């Protein structure tokens, strides 16, 4: 039923729109304007045109961070998607204790990133000996300082970030499974569908829309990944775990280069839009093929 007065919906939406403009659009425009300047935070801003954007192409650290970010996005998205889905499937099949299990799975989401990172930092430390190297020693292996290893540190940062947030996607998938009509599932059972077939042919296809929404959130979130990398390793060792967001933050606030930092922020915005656009394209094709 359409509203009688066309203006009223807009008026009711106005406070939310104003807040959105104030905290998203306005800072975005402000940041874009800074990206055309050279400014250290002290004194006047000097307009330098597209120099900051030209610098992006020759910045070796940025491209290292971008490659790291692609790895972080692919592995992190896959990990969180699969982990969230598996946990949701487990929860739908557990009758006793599912409430407690749900809380336990969700706890990492609500613990602060600082606490999670410090816990894992101590667990992975070799000197002083942490839990994981101690287990490696007990198993007769040489303990590895994972967070100081150039080749392994990014994997651990990705997995720890995934561990923190997979509970959120578990909740989303679990809600989606709960909303599937029981009649459909019962009809499938009556037709001789087993447990695996139920998920393969009934439940997962029915939550395809949710799946793509989660994928968009994951891709967007991992492209802007910051806290775990920054707190745990500060982008190190060297640039092994440097992500584009951490590099942007350090450029602006450590190196006092707000102009170039803003250009990096615009880069993140554009790469997020491109990535989400690609996901939407796949979604549209998937719907077309149905």
């Amino acid at each position: 039923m359409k509203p009688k007065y066309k203006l009223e919906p807009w008026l009711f939406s106005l406070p939310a729109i104003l807040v959105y403009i104030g905290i998203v659009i306005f800072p975005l425009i402000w940041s874009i304007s800074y990206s055309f300047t050279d400014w250290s935070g002290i004194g006047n801003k000097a307009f330098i045109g597209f120099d900051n954007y030209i610098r992006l192409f020759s910045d070796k650290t940025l491209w290292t961070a971008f490659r790291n970010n692609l790895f972080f996005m692919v592995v992190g998205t896959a990990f969180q998607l699969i982990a969230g889905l598996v946990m949701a499937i487990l929860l739908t099949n557990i009758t006793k204790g599912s409430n407690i299990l749900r809380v336990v799975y969700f706890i990492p989401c609500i613990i602060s990133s600082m606490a999670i990172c410090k816990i894992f930092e101590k667990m992975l430390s070799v000197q002083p000996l942490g839990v994981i190297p101690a287990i490696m020693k007990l198993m007769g292996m040489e303990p590895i300082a994972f967070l100081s290893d150039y080749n392994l540190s990014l994997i651990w940062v990705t997995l720890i970030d995934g561990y923190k947030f997979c509970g959120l996607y578990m909740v989303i998938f679990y809600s989606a499974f709960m909303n599937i009509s029981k009649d459909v599932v019962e009809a499938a059972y009556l037709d001789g569908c087993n447990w695996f077939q139920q998920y393969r042919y009934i439940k997962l296809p029915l939550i395809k829309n949710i799946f793509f929404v989660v994928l968009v959130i994951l891709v967007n979130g991992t492209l802007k990944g910051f806290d775990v990398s920054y707190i745990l390793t500060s982008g190190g060792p060297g640039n092994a775990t440097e992500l584009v967001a951490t590099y942007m933050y350090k450029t602006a606030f450590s190196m006092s280069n707000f102009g170039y930092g803003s250009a990096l922020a615009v880069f993140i915005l554009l790469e997020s839009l491109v990535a989400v656009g690609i996901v939407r394209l796949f979604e549209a094709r998937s719907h077309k093929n149905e």
Partner: protein
Amino acid sequence: MKKKVLGILLVFTMLAGLLTGCGKEPANTGGSGTSASGEEKASGDRTLHINWLSARNADEAVIKAIKDVAASYKEENPDLDFSFETENISDRSSYLQKLKILAASDELPEWYDSDPDTWFADLVKAGKAYSIEDLYNELGVSDKIFTISKEYARLSSGELNLMTFQCNTEYFFYNKKMFQDAGITSAPGTYEEFLKDCQILKDKGYTPLSMGGDWPILRYFAMVPFRLTGNDYIMNSTAGKASFTEAAGIEGAEFMQNLSPYFQTGWSSADYDTMVDLFASGQTAMLYNGTWVLADLSDENGNLKEDFGYFTMPVYSDDDATASTDYFANSGIGTAVRSDSMDEEMKSFIHYLIDHYAKASLSYNNLPSVMPDDETMSKLSDSYQQIIKDVSGVKTYAKCWDVVINSASVEPLEKETTSLVLGHTTPQEWAKNMDEIVASENK
């Protein structure tokens, strides 16, 4: 019609609720002159409000000592509306980020900590830091401050805009038992002996060196160039007038790679506290650090614990440009006073602070930047008396890379040096990258 009016009223009610919190409080200019509510002070009212954004831990001796002095100043001035608050951010990167954001939004507090680096020099040029040299001269206290505590805090232009509260030298602290057990009978005097001793300790199953945090790795790198050229190399290379590919730079880089096997496993992700704790708890044989760490390594009498000894920076070769008595000495991070907060009340408090700081500082086992009086000197522990002697004996103070280099290059320098030590780049690649970084930041 009624529904339309009701709808519009509801919208405006929501908007009003949204906008309620948007009113701006009158700015608290701090210092004296205005109260927190922004009212003009009545004539005869004395006020002084100091907010200090500090890079030091709240438990640090400097903070505790100054708070004690502030408390006694308040007692002695009952007619003064005085408050002294500190905000402590001990993680240096986080501290600097907050400071830079405050500076960019022109919201610096009355006191704030900084090193005399290029970023602070820009702040001085913008008139955001009072001249401490002028202040010391006006108060007639310049002679009371240790030379290093003034010289270290000077900008490259020669201006002094930072108060300092420490008088530090840097040593290699070592574990005597580990050295004895490994058969090392005397502290190394040259870098060759130092590396040999590290290998002996490693072969004995000990971890020779403790490492962690941001700046310590840069100190090790600075040692060889300092021995070879004094401060010439650091000043020229950071200004882009000398290349990191020169002999001093490459030899320094090679020394770093030689040290790599002797740090504890996982050092690149260890923080400063872990570095100190590993040594203090007897898990590593040596720790390079400043005398500010004595609070963790001293007994109740203020002397270095029996288990620990120290030696100064070894010499590199017979052709060294510096003497064996020249090494790193500094005054710790400085404290600036925001120009517009310097008034007569502030000057009066700072004068009182300088007069009473030495005794307060030493009560917390911290060497002050102000010379203690004779009575206090005579009661100092042997360790502290020796340190004051060492500081006085230094003719050439080694400059710190993280202070001299353009502040935008500090993070890349730390990362490149970490990669070098981990073996991911060669000294030549490291030197080339550093030249590019310095060139791009000095443009």
